[in-house]
């Protein structure tokens, strides 16, 4: 009991203390109220009568939700301003990054602390081909995605040789070396100055061109890519291969006994994750028109981990929620302090200790109708 109250008490007291230390009183109260709202919502949901839950459930399933989200996404440029479009595009890209990490962490149980660096490799790949070699935009993007995927696969192939717990260590080493290479290979990457590209126009079979500098065009590009990625990943992770991934996560040894080549599946999984990570990296490049080495920092990789975990590992939609929520926290804190990550880090620790399933995972858990006694799954 003492241990439990220590576990809950220490981080919560630290969070409250740090918030009041860094922020003015009113803002601190507001922030803590928002954070306290999360467990409250989960608790209220758990109190809903089962009849209501059963009645509402279909509307949150992909069959109803996906078309609604699709229509909202298509119509967004007609009723949102440029600033909002840019903001939502950024959210979707961050969500895509977090989702690609979720593929590894949530479905196989491989923690990667290199995802920002891998996305950076994708972005640099495209930027180098566009500016130094004058490749066409599509060729550059293809090369970037290939490079990012290949590097991630390579990282996975080396890392699966040791136990899972070391995986995080090795990814961190890979990430920091990628950062060093980007910083010191000045003739290719311009070092610390970063690379600037002219935002290209992407032609689609000569039918229409997407001018990435236009906010509405870029929104459609991002929305299309992220929506398609989500649908593909969702289907992929529900396929037999995806089930094997989850089997490995639950019990690696048993999966091996059943005759699955666990290491091959893990490497395949990192490749899939790397594909979507470098895609997100390319989108980051097209959004900003600039890529700098600070984007490959270990702290940034850690932020991606925070997004996924806060949103809910293994839920695929959770990382989007987590990225948006943490980004909102970051903006809120950023008005008052430069050390937003201090508060976010404490919030992250509390989330892992108290609700390791994250926001979406916790909601799903209480939302699901409990099976009746004698009727267990």
């Amino acid at each position, binding site marked *: 009991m003492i*241990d*439990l109250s*220590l*576990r809950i*008490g*220490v*981080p919560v007291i*630290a969070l409250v203390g*740090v918030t009041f230390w*860094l922020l003015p009183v009113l803002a601190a109260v507001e922030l803590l109220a928002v954070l306290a709202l999360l467990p409250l919502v989960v608790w209220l949901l758990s109190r809903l009568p089962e009849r209501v839950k059963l009645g509402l459930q279909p509307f949150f399933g992909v069959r109803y939700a996906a078309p609604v989200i699709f229509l909202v996404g298509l119509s967004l440029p007609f009723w949102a301003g440029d600033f909002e479009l840019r903001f939502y595009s950024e959210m979707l890209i961050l969500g895509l990054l977090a989702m690609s990490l979720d593929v590894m962490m949530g479905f196989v*149980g491989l*923690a990667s*602390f290199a995802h920002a660096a891998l996305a950076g490799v994708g972005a640099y790949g495209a930027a180098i081909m566009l500016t130094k070699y004058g490749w066409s935009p599509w060729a550059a993007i293809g090369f970037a995605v290939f490079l990012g995927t290949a590097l991630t696969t390579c990282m996975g192939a*080396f*890392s699966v*040789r*040791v*136990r*899972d*717990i*070391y995986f*995080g*260590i*090795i990814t*961190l*080493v*890979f990430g*920091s*070396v990628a950062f*060093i*290479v980007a*910083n*010191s290979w000045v003739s290719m990457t311009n070092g610390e100055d970063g690379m600037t590209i002219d935002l290209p126009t992407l032609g689609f079979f000569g039918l229409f061109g997407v001018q990435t500098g236009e906010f509405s065009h870029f929104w459609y590009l991002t929305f299309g890519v992220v929506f398609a990625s989500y649908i593909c990943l969702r289907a992929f992770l529900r396929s037999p291969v995806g089930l094997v991934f989850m089997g490995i996560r639950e019990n690696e040894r048993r999966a091996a006994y059943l005759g699955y080549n666990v290491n091959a599946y893990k490497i395949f999984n990192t490749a899939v994750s790397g594909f979507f990570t470098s895609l997100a990296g390319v989108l980051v490049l097209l959004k900003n028109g600039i890529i700098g080495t600070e984007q490959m920092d*270990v*702290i940034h990789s*850690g932020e991606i*981990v*925070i997004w996924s*975990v806060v949103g809910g590992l293994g839920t695929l939609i959770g990382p989007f929620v987590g990225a948006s929520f943490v980004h909102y926290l970051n903006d809120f804190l950023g008005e008052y302090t430069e*050390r937003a*990550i*201090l508060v976010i*880090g*404490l919030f*992250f*620790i509390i989330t*892992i*200790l108290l609700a*390791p399933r994250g926001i979406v995972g916790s909601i799903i858990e209480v939302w699901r109708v409990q099976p009746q006694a004698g009727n267990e799954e």
Partner: protein
Amino acid sequence: MEQFLERLVIESVMGLQNGLVLALVAAGFTLILGVMNIVNFAHGEFYMAGAFAGWLALKFGSAIVGFWGAVVIAGVVVAAFGYAIERSLFRTTHGGNPFIPLLVSFGLALVLQQAALTIFGTIGKFMAPPIKASVPFFDLEFPLYRIVIMGVAALIMLLLWLFVTRTKWGVWIQATIQNREMAACMGVPVPRVYQLVFAVGCGLAAMSGVLVAPIFSVDYSMGSDIIVAAFIVVVVGGLGSLPGTMLAALLIGELEAIGSIFLEGSQPQILSLLVLLVFLVFRPNGLMGDRGLE
């Protein structure tokens, strides 16, 4: 050519010194990993916290304690801090999903680093070396303090090794590394061993932080600067093996020092990564790891 040889000798002495300090940091890390199954991402932050603790002790208590007193104080204070962290954050995560302590320690690293940045600012703090003399070495003066550090670090490593191999608690630590459940069945107080190992590991990191403080400046990023090298040392050295850690630390220290003749900045780390990859392919158990990592 002569100049090159001179540089080579000087760099290898530097590498020896860096390697010995690295061994102290990595030894705590590998013990925590071996005993508790926690990848302590925050280990570098304890090293940084130690340097700041030593700096504070010297700043406000220089009348009472000297430099070596500050080393001991930092070790004790940070060990107590580590004990408190173990009791509050890691205690309840034992035996569950190893993912959770991993992520907790990662969050802790972020929080400690940012807290140091908030409290102490970005500008590095200077700490005067306790020994200002230097010895003539070729045609330049080599600071005696660096040689003293080597001796001190080697002495601490030796004491740690004696502790782990010759005392009751040390044997319990070894037993826990070999087989946690069986050790618990034989009456080893495993939770106490956890607390001890975590506190000792943090204390070791803190002491090495103070030792190198007069060479580098004390700033918030020093933890993340050393942690990657410590990770490589742990994987190359083998899980929970002190002699392996020592060897690997010297190897990595020398490699990065000699590499710095040809490369600049943090580029020698690329060489360390190559060594790590070679070990992952040909010897995933590390130099001296007797228990497989698989």
